[in-house]
């Protein structure tokens, strides 16, 4: 007997396969393009000059260190704000809030997560930085800290939304097990529910970082965009400039093929590497947690 040909099956499988491969293809193409346009920078500018502390392309100073430190300090500041706030909000929504509050808060948070960041940039310029200037008595409110606040605000809904799903997925029986042993609500959250949701909570944090590092518009609007080396704690309250903002602001007016152009792409490569590293770190943590769980459950 002949095996019947399932044409429909075959076509659908091929289509799905093609979309899978095209995702890989796009990433590879982007990467190659970045490399082609960015690597020549290494031939045109000495590596030690790239790692210098002065960014002033008009006079051929291409030190990208201020931009990297600017991105880092703003992102780290944002995470210090977003982690505790995001996790605490997720815990509140999933574990503490009465049902009607939860039913209002959940969609609201999801809505916030989809808010265009330019709108938050407005808020930053009109409200946050003037407030910081007067409250902290700074020469200008346009500072790394304002950027951190905004980025933190942008990352919080992402973190809340994913962490809340993870907490919600912890079986009720875990909590009851702890309650029955005489644990209070808070002890149960801290020692049982959060650890059980660990891998989901970590994913939430990593995606939050991803969202913050890649963010451009909002930070460009409120950080003052001064490319100064940010390595002292005081730098948090001074103007700063990020890698993404630099690329966005300067790419439009640079001559294609010039050194400046190549260096901007080189910054793109650095950015790509950093997000790659964050992603690999995230997935290896999550993967390890998953593998253990799978081994244990089988």
């Amino acid at each position, binding site marked *: 007997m002949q095996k019947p040909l399932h044409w429909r099956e075959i076509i659908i499988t091929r289509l799905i396969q093609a979309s899978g491969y095209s995702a890989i293809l796009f990433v590879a193409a982007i990467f190659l393009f970045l490399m082609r346009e960015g690597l020549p920078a290494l031939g045109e500018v000495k590596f030690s000059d790239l790692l210098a502390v002065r960014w002033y392309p008009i006079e051929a100073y291409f030190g990208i260190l201020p931009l990297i430190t600017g991105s880092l300090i703003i992102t780290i500041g944002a995470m210090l704000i977003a982690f505790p706030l995001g996790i605490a909000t997720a815990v509140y929504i999933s574990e503490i809030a009465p049902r009607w509050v939860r039913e209002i808060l959940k969609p609201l948070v999801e809505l916030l997560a989809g808010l265009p960041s330019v709108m938050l940039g407005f808020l930053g310029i009109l409200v946050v930085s003037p407030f910081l200037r007067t409250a902290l008595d700074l020469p200008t409110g346009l500072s790394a800290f304002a950027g951190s606040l905004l980025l933190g605000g942008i990352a919080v809904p992402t973190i809340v939304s994913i962490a809340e799903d993870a907490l919600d997925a912890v079986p009720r029986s875990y909590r*009851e*097990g*702890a309650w*029955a*042993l*005489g644990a209070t609500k808070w002890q149960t959250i801290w020692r049982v529910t959060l650890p059980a949701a660990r891998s989901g909570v970590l994913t939430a944090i990593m995606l939050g970082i991803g969202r913050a590092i890649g963010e451009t518009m909002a930070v460009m609007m409120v950080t003052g965009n001064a490319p100064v080396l940010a390595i002292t704690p005081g730098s948090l309250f001074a103007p700063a400039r990020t890698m993404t903002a630099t690329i966005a602001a300067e790419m439009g007016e640079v001559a294609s093929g010039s050194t400046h152009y190549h260096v901007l792409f080189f910054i793109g490569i650095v950015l790509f590497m950093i997000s790659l590293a964050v992603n690999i770190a995230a997935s290896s943590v999550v993967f390890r947690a998953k593998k253990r769980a799978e081994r244990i459950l089988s």
Partner: protein
Amino acid sequence: MDKILIDSLSLQYADGTESLRNVSLAIPEKAITVLFGPAGGGKSTLLRCLNRLNDLTEVRASSGKVLIDGENVLDPKTDVIALRRKVGMVFARPVVLPMSIRGNLTYGLELAGETRRSRLDEAVERSLRLAAIWDEVKDRLDEPAIALSGGQQQRVCLARVLALQPEIVLLDEPTSGLDPISTGKVEAALQELKKDYTIILVPHSVQQAGRTADHAAFFLQGELVEFQPGHGIFTNPRDKRTEDYVTGRFG
């Protein structure tokens, strides 16, 4: 002596289900009292009233009293945390907490403020022996508890409850997911335990009810149909519905 006196207890969940209807029952100390009957009879609900675990579910209305050692534990002024240490509970599906075996055992004690290492170690060994699992896990106390087999996990859960030195142990179908050998081990452990503890067991079958019961109560749709001290309920049921159920003619 009666350890627990349940006095016209009724309970209605938020969705309107009447899960307990005017239940009155006296539970003798240091014996195994079995609550059995078909699904939805209110057995779990009754157990969860005894340690106030129902506080955390949405209950619409409840009335009546539960006296443990003469004190009404349903009184809003009751210290619920202390109550739950005195009235331990083992669930149908073993819920080991996401920590090591030792961590599972000491968790409750640490919550109760015990920090002395020697006391904790002592409690770990004592309670694991009582739950008849010491020999199987003594060399791997620091491994994650979730790596144990289901039957071992269930005995760890029992040990975890015993570590708190409760006076009453509630078991809600503790062997429903276990193989016959593990089931036998749990039942044997219960026979030892009843010398010191008041045990209330919801069995997963009539056979288990018959094997383990010192006293038995039959529940049907939120109602206590019949309670008899001793084995009478299986050999000489007074109510027709009980008779149908224990002889397998139910339905």
